[in-house]
């Protein structure tokens, strides 16, 4: 979008929406939308308080353990599926099933199996993230340029060499894009888990603020969450673009 010959940066319209929000808030159109300025003031106010920091810590911990295990399991499994026909045919139906399944429905099971704490949330997060990571790693390996494989064979590469020096790197763009989508899903998973279990992390904060009608508190937390998830997604997209040059030229 250009305006008076000046190119407006992407996402800059959010500022406009922010201003609109502020106006709607100021004229008190609805109780549920306090002015943005008030929300930011609240954010600064609660940003340093223990409940908020704790919620953030708990969420970050669950998120990192969940996504870390999703990557550690998902990438090797995906690569294995891409390389081995039998494993692929055995696992692919399940991966596809869980990829499109509404995993939210599994949260109650996880709650009764693993309790109302960190463990359930970690598993929810990992479950949300892992399937797309598996599928993308598999796709990355599958579309590998066959002459690269032959090249490594012709120089006498061992299985391990081929795996770590050729397959992994060739699949890296797809793996990264799987990780990015997986992370976006994991953010949703961690929040859905906390909402349903509702006595941990941001889940309990939301419960508290909602039951006390603390609108600006509620929005302050929401904005932090939205911003964090957006930053994570953008950072991974940036990493993905850095390997783009070889994704398109195979």
């Amino acid at each position, binding site marked *: *979008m250009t305006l008076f010959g000046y190119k*407006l940066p*992407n*996402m*800059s*319209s*959010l500022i*406009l*929406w922010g201003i609109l929000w502020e106006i709607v808030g100021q004229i008190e159109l*609805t109780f*549920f939308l306090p002015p943005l300025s008030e929300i930011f003031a609240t954010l600064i106010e609660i940003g340093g308080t223990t409940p908020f920091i704790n919620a953030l810590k708990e969420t970050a911990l669950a998120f990192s353990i969940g996504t870390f295990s999703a990557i550690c399991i998902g990438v090797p499994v995906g690569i294995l599926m891409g390389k081995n026909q*039998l494993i692929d*045919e*055995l*696992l692919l*139906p*399940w991966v596809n*099933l869980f990829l*499109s*399944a*509404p*995993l*939210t*429905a*599994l*949260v*109650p*099971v996880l709650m*009764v*199996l693993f309790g109302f704490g960190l463990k359930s949330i970690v598993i929810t997060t990992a479950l949300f993230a892992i399937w*797309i990571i598996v599928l993308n790693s598999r796709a990355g390996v599958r579309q590998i340029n066959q002459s690269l494989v032959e090249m490594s064979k012709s120089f006498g590469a061992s299985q391990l060499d081929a795996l770590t020096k050729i397959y992994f790197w060739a699949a890296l763009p797809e793996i990264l894009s799987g990780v990015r*989508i997986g992370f*976006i899903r994991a*953010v*949703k998973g*961690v*929040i*859905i888990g906390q*909402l*349903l279990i509702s006595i941990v992390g*941001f889940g309990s904060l*939301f*419960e508290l*603020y*909602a039951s006390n*009608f603390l609108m600006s508190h*509620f929005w302050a*937390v*929401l904005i932090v*969450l*939205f911003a964090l*998830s*957006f930053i994570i*997604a953008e950072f991974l997209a940036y990493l993905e673009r850095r390997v783009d040059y070889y994704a398109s030229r195979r």
Partner: protein
Amino acid sequence: MLAKHRANILKLISALVVFTAWEIAGRVPVSFAFPTFFESVSAFWALLIDGTMFKAYAETLKPLVIGILISAFFGIGIGLFVGLSRGFDWLVSPIFIVMQTAPLAALIPLLVMAYGIGLTSKVFVVCIMAMPVIVLNTGGAVRNTPANLIEMGEAFLGSRRQVIMKIILPAAFPIIFAGLRLGVSAGFIGAILSELKITPTGVGDIITYSRSIADYPSMYAAIASIIILAVLFLNVLERVENKLLQGSRKPSALD
């Protein structure tokens, strides 16, 4: 003979292995809340026979269907404008991009406060989950119509309206449809989430109720049923998509 059915045989083996593992894990048992496979299947059957399941799904599918229809209508509409107008794209897209990456589930408590615990809130949840992916895919598909096709239309003196109706829309259709499918997938998450979080109705009610009376086989059966339903429905959509797109290259929609 064997080679021809290899794929299906392997699928069967794979399923058998998983179900056997489930059965064994249930018999050990790994947890008091982990029923065996056969217990779950018979609970599933019982729910199906006495009609509980059908009543529950009539309830569950209501917000889902309404929400998907609304999202499809407005999502594709907004997406079209996004794709056709640079200014509108600049103005509106960022909101949907943020919605797409953000954990919108967190809005549920707010929606409950604003619209109560009835159908409206649930429809709303389905909409906010399903709409972004539909808008973004439609917008992207329309924006990326091959320039040479549009130029061809203009060279043969097509009006703007003709170019949109006869070139841009058909060219964008595959990705719009794929976006719709992803929207349905997200809508399922929304529908279940709202039944578990807002008020237990339909399948959410079976899950919540059987959990509260520790009838775990029924709980597992209900959960399995919604997962199977969602997967089957999405599979059918994908089949339809492939059927409609025979010959043309399968596009990759953005998730």
